[in-house]
């Protein structure tokens, strides 16, 4: 092990090898009476568990973890939004999960060094030209998967192959999809915002090379399920869509907020003060 990057490679190699291998399916046995009883018992237990799950869409404790409820230390550690804040800001997370969303929990379960990390919430926010966009909330543990929960992270995950958005609640839309594939601007929007308006512009000079404006330079998009989406024509390689210069939120109560900073994220009451928030202008009717 020589330099930093060799040591990172070493850690990555170890982490890869610690990934939980899929459990091989056991051979099918001939049915017996005792087997039938066991099956029925297991079936009943599963039924009860499913009923409990549908009544309480609560965090799942990884197997082997302590039984006592875990403290959410997000607030005192100022790491990110608490689960309560995420729930308070995104109606999508508050609705009951569908059967498909429950099934998708497995898809988003992450193998870790110690035990699988199970997302606490999986919700399908929308389908854009065949791309499924999920809100997935993971607990962030202090020590791998064994320590207390120190924050929650909501990932926006689009099933478009080359899209992956960890922990983003960005106000400015980002582009999902890819060359020759369905493409769209996408933005996460908290409750209370009815419409968004995006004004696009390409940078001038050399940095504007390859920049492509969408068909509408000023797009007005209605929000559904905390998601604002604007489908786009696919681009050719070597080009990319322009970022908006200005984003405006129109709220249900008639107020509007104008944002001019690309790095700004959806604000949460107890979140730490992020840099680059100076250019926010708030307008009230």
């Amino acid at each position, binding site marked *: 092990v020589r330099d*930093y990057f060799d040591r990172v490679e070493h850690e*990555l190699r170890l982490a890869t090898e610690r990934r939980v291998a899929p459990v091989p399916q056991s051979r099918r046995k001939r049915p017996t009476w005792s087997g039938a009883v066991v099956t029925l018992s297991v079936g009943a237990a599963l039924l009860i568990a499913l009923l409990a799950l549908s009544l309480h869409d609560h965090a799942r404790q990884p197997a082997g973890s302590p039984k006592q409820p875990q403290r959410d230390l997000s607030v005192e550690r100022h790491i990110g939004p608490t689960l309560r804040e995420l729930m308070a800001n995104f109606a999508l997370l508050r609705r009951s999960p569908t059967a498909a969303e429950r099934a998708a929990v497995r898809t988003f379960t992450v193998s870790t060094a110690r035990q699988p990390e199970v997302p606490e919430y999986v919700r399908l926010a929308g389908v854009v030209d065949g791309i499924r966009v999920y809100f997935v909330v993971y607990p962030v543990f202090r020590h791998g998967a064994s320590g207390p929960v120190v924050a929650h992270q909501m990932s926006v995950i689009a099933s478009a192959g080359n899209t*992956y958005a960890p922990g983003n609640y960005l106000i400015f839309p980002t582009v999902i999809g890819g060359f020759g594939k369905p493409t769209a601007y996408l933005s996460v929007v908290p409750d209370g915002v009815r419409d968004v308006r995006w004004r696009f512009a390409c940078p001038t000079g050399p940095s504007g090379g390859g920049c492509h404006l969408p068909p509408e330079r000023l797009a007005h998009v209605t929000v559904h399920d905390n998601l604002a989406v604007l489908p786009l024509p696919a681009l050719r390689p070597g080009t990319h869509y322009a970022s908006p210069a200005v984003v405006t939120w129109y709220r249900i109560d008639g107020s509007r907020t104008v944002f001019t900073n690309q790095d700004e994220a959806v604000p949460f009451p107890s979140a730490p003060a992020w840099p680059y928030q100076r250019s926010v202008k708030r307008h009230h009717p």
Partner: protein
Amino acid sequence: MNDAELLTASARGDGDAFAVFYRRHLAEIVGYGLRATGSREAAADLAAEVFASALEACDRYEQVYDSASAWLHGIARNKLLDSRRRGRVEDATRQRIGFQPVLLDDRDLERVVELASQDALALVDELPTEQRVAVRGRVLAERDYAELATELGCSESVVRQRVSRGLARLRARLTESIGGGTST
């Protein structure tokens, strides 16, 4: 093996496969990080977090091209935005997958610059042949325009034009790789 095959093998716990994937893309991610942040420390930290995230998500990778470069850059861009927002590069993913702390020293910081240079050279190789030969001859080998014109069988002004266009294209690629991309 292409990237998709390496990531599939990694998802099954093949550490060697992920190490190959890591080495294949390390220079471009470090180069991206250095250009975007201007900080060698941040570039090194960002690269480690990007590859940890790639490992965490490798079983969800869907092949679009033979190379997973666009996918990796998407992760890097998100990590970058996240780090700007928070004022530091997060290590949440590394913690989740059980990384031990890896510290940087001065020699490592020099290595960051070396890797970023490799990335820039790789971009030169992607230029059209005429521009690549002209840029390599003039900028990297520091040869005279007249000498290159004789060797290439064209006028000096044509060589100058090829160098100029090649450099402009390189500049655009470097800028594009920071600001553009197709990821969320």
